[in-house]
């Protein structure tokens, strides 16, 4: 005989104003770092009281690439590695929009590496949040340009033997005006950095070290996702203002985190307007966007 049990009371999701609830549940594994990172972005947007109509999110392909689909913003899920050039067109056409690119490490700096360095060089007004889990997760755990030496992946079955990228150094040396790194458990500090990045004019970059519970943790026998997330957090060393050259990450090593770069530099559009005004004076009307929406 069965007894009827009343369903649990459904409470409103605290991020309901920012999530597409009609797309839940999401596809991410439990204890993946993407959840806390998206939560940090949501908190940052809320705390800044930004007009959400004026925030757009662009992503490429991969687990992180799915972020655009879950956020209730004007959102674009583009091709592998190409979120940045798509975002470049969007942000130049519409400087009134705050354009955020949410990207994984493989998407951003392997297939999209060229776009990354040139977007930073131009100082496009874009905030990039890069969730770095050291592996290609969506495709089943292959070696990435961030995989630490000796780490095991499906395509580095004998341990990775390539030098990995140091993303803060890559961003800083390419011209980013804001560079920070946290782990997925530094929720409060990460939220603060995302807030700073969103308010910064120009190319801002926030790296988030996150566990891939299903692949990276399992292949390298590092326990479950939550313990790996905790390991990253507990083994991080906060060094604000440190030289990004010191921010290399080795396999299960200490991880330098903090805000490394925070400088002022004119954006692409500011430089364009400045250059043309210097040359043509009043003959040139400063560009302020192409609002073709009405």
């Amino acid at each position, binding site marked *: 005989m069965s007894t009827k049990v009343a369903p649990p009371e459904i409470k409103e999701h605290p991020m309901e104003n920012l999530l*597409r609830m*009609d*797309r839940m549940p999401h596809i991410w594994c439990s204890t993946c770092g993407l959840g806390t990172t998206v939560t940090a972005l949501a908190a940052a947007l809320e705390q800044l009281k930004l007009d*959400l*109509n*004026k925030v*757009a999110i*662009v992503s490429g392909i991969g687990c992180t690439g799915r972020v*655009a*689909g879950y956020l*209730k*913003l*004007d*959102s*674009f*899920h*583009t*091709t592998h*590695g*190409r979120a*940045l*050039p*798509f*975002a*470049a*067109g*969007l*942000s*130049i*056409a*519409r400087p*009134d*929009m705050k354009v955020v690119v949410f990207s994984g490490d493989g998407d951003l700096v392997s297939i999209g590496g*060229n*776009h990354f360095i*040139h977007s930073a060089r131009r100082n496009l007004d874009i905030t990039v949040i890069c969730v770095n889990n050291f592996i290609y997760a969506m495709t089943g755990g292959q070696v990435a340009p961030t995989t630490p030496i000796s780490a095991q992946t499906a395509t580095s079955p004998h341990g990775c033997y390539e030098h990995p990228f140091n993303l803060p150094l890559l961003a800083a040396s390419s011209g980013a005006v804001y560079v920070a790194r946290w782990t997925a458990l530094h929720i409060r500090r990460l939220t603060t950095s995302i807030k700073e990045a969103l308010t910064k004019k120009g190319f801002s970059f926030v790296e988030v070290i996150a566990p891939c519970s299903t692949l990276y943790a399992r292949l390298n026998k590092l326990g479950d996702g939550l313990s790996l997330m905790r390991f990253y957090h507990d083994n991080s060393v906060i060094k604000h203002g440190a030289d990004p050259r010191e921010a290399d990450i080795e396999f299960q090593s200490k991880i330098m985190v903090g805000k490394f770069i925070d400088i002022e530099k004119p954006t*692409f559009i500011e430089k*364009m307007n400045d250059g*043309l005004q210097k040359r*043509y004076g009043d*003959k*040139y*009307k400063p*560009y302020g966007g*192409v*609002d*073709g*929406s*009405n």
Partner: protein
Amino acid sequence: MKANPNNVLTGVHYLDGNHAAAEGAIAAGCKFFAGYPITPSTEIAERFARRIPFLGGVFIQMEDELASMNAILGASWGGAKSMTCTSGPGFSLMMENFGLGMMLETPCVLVNVQRGGPSTGLPTLPGQADMMQARWGSHGDYEVIALAPDSPQESFDLVIHAFNLSEKYRMPILVMTDECVGHMTEKVVIPPSDEIDIIERRFTKKPPGEAWPYEQNGNDISPMLPVGKGYKFHVTGLTHDYRGYPIINAQAQDWNVRRLVDKVKKRSDEIIWLEETDVEGADVVVMSYGISSRVVRPAIAKAKKEGLKIGLIKMITVWPFPEKRVRELASKVKSLIMVELNLGQVYYEMERCAGGKCRSYLCGHAGGTVHNPADIYKTIKEAAR
């Protein structure tokens, strides 16, 4: 709507095809151009870069053609009419995100000034060997619209037409010109702005919360949703439903892809644009497009002088292919000839549609120069036997 007079250099000009194409884009209201230098297309980018700062738009030279194609998609969603140009190798790189443009249904224009291929091929010399790449170059099923100007004047006119088609059908449009048209200098008449018809973007009239990116469900072209207005819409390169949400199954795929194909196929009668000369009653009909459709003329004139009944179909749109017209003609004529600067591309479409009801001839050429009219004349004589 008529063109904005600020954008239109009304008057009689002496321009090459590339400069004329840039003027066409500007006249059409293009405000964003992203490109990467490549011979023989670069003059389009150069002229746009020189002119656009004073017309409220932006030129940006991207890091490569992958980025260029993506940037014009992003700018288009931002509300700007946008364009890029390229040639062979760059066209190959653009194909990935040309497909994204098709999937997201994004208005924009891509001009390919064709050169000899494959690979680096003949950077400074003409070819028409990207026609099948134009048709099938990105993976998956979709239908394209490709226009082929034969002169600087048509480069101007057809780039405007391409922008209008891109807004009307909400898709990227290809303008397939070539090195010869791009670099030949001729008279170009730019009409007064009130004689240039412009199709502006159609945005939804529904309020946020009630509008979806593909809401017309295939019955019609869906209006665009504007960014920054609270629609908070989602679009994806994944197979999706009318809401723009990814749906990964066979049913959704059929809905999504069939719609992309049907939107051109079912409207092909209104899209196809042919210029026919003496086709009725002809024994032989020569089909051609772009620069080759000019080179055929002396050969046809010579054959006609000898009393042969030769018609010409100059295809202004190459894709969609005029299947219906070729089927009709195949049962009326002795022969059809395709003249193109490749070793057989659009020819196979003609032969397929002729279905064996008449003889089909290819007058091909590997590129590097235009045809010798004598070779075309020889094919006409053979076809008229």
